């Protein structure tokens, strides 16, 4: 259970989030959508303490994580993993070493055992034959799969995806969607996805929150979004250039 309560965040004079509140239930595939630069990534980075809210509370399983210091945050991050927008694999490490790193650090495995376990993890995302490659040698879709494998190594209960399908070709994008849906359905992992990819949104979302001008414009199921009469939301989900939406 994750709750955002009246979260505010500014960067200098720019007010990004003015007052955001909503709850995410366990086992959901919850989408946070909105135009570029509206603060979607900022919102989820606050959940794992990569950024701090200026005001408001963020609760994770009843803990006020927005009040935690960096050391206390490490426990949160172990159960709440994150897949970055650009995959952000460590480019000095091979794919296998990337996946092995959290195992080595947190599971107390030796370097060799960690590599064996990491190979197992990579095969789950069908990347086992690329384990010895460096990230720079791989395409975006492959990097994304390694990044997902790395995020899942510690068996987190929550996984945050920051624009997982942006910059992927359509086939890779649908594969990532399928993987996210399976995570929720088979393992009961709560997935929070930041996206503006309409195919993903209406393909796999359980519920959706749309951010607009620093606030939640609408919270509901995909059906709610299709049926709304709100012109701004209709413009966004139909991808029209003309309309009332301000950039």
């Amino acid at each position, binding site marked *: 259970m994750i709750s955002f309560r009246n979260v505010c965040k500014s960067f200098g004079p720019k007010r990004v989030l003015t007052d955001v509140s909503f709850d995410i239930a366990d086992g959901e595939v919850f989408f946070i959508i909105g135009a570029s630069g509206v603060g979607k990534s900022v919102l989820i980075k606050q959940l*794992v303490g*990569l950024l701090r809210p200026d005001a408001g509370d963020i609760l994770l399983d009843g803990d006020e994580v927005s009040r935690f210091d960096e050391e206390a*945050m490490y426990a949160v*991050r172990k159960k709440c993993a*994150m897949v*970055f927008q650009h995959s952000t694999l*460590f*480019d000095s490490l091979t794919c296998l070493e990337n996946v092995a790193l*959290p195992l080595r*650090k947190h599971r107390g495995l030796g370097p060799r055992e960690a590599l064996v376990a990491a190979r197992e993890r990579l095969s789950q995302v069908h990347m086992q034959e690329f384990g010895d490659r460096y990230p720079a040698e791989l395409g975006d879709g492959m990097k994304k799969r390694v990044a997902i494998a790395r995020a899942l190594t510690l068996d987190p209960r929550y996984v945050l995806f920051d624009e997982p399908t942006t910059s992927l070709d359509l086939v890779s994008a649908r594969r990532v969607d399928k993987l996210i849906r399976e995570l929720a359905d088979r393992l009961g992992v709560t997935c929070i996805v930041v996206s503006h990819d309409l195919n993903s949104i209406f393909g796999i979302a359980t519920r959706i929150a749309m951010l607009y001008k620093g606030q939640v414009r609408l919270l509901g199921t995909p059906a709610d979004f299709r049926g709304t009469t709100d012109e701004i939301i209709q413009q966004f989900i139909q991808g029209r250039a003309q309309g009332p939406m301000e950039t």
Partner: protein
Amino acid sequence: MSKMFSPIIAAREGLFSLAGTLGKMGIIAHQIGRRLFRLDFDHEEFWRNMYKMGVKSLPIVALTALFTGATMVVQAAPIVQRYGAQQLLGWGAGFGILREVGPVLTALMISGRVGANNTAELGTMTVTEQIDALRALAIDPIAFLIVPRFVAIVLTLFLSTLYADAVALIGAAYAGQALVGVDPSTFYNGLTSGYMGIADVTNGLIKSIIFGIAMGLASCHFGLAVSGGAPGVGRAVNATVVASAAGIFVVDYFVSFILG
């Protein structure tokens, strides 16, 4: 705000930013110190960096030392010939190499090869969010990345100085033979005669450790403080080499003065 260039305003701003940078370096030093004290750092990353920084710098350090040692003799040669002081050549060159030229030039080369490279790497990791990715994996970036690199930089500089001292003395001895006609054995006698003491060696090595600490802090600080994409990385690299170079000479004076 006035767009006119005013030296007073420039000096004030320069002073403020210098104080800010030194303060942030102090914070990093404290964070590094705490983890070092608990021996909380990644050993694999340490050895990887030790190889990349230390072993791979050996050729450039050797080449620098060889030519520097030889140049020292060339500079001392007119004095040797003026006074016919053949037996003093080893002392003069050895003293200069061990106390000043060895540690300083090695530090300058290591700053260019290792310090700058380290800033570029950390800077790239910062702008591509790899530091945040570490934090998101519940891995402490200071313990995992910074402490191993800092320790590797300090050790690399110390060991390189030791090595450079030896190579520079050899270079000096043979340059002395070729250019001034001083036999290498006379050179080594001059080196070990009463004028030189163990203090001359330790003095230079103590300096190299302090240079290493200053360089490591500057390099890690500017790498982590990068903002603004690839051009930001370039600016950070430039800031590191400039800060290290100025730092080396300023520290050198005070250490020389204190150690006498």
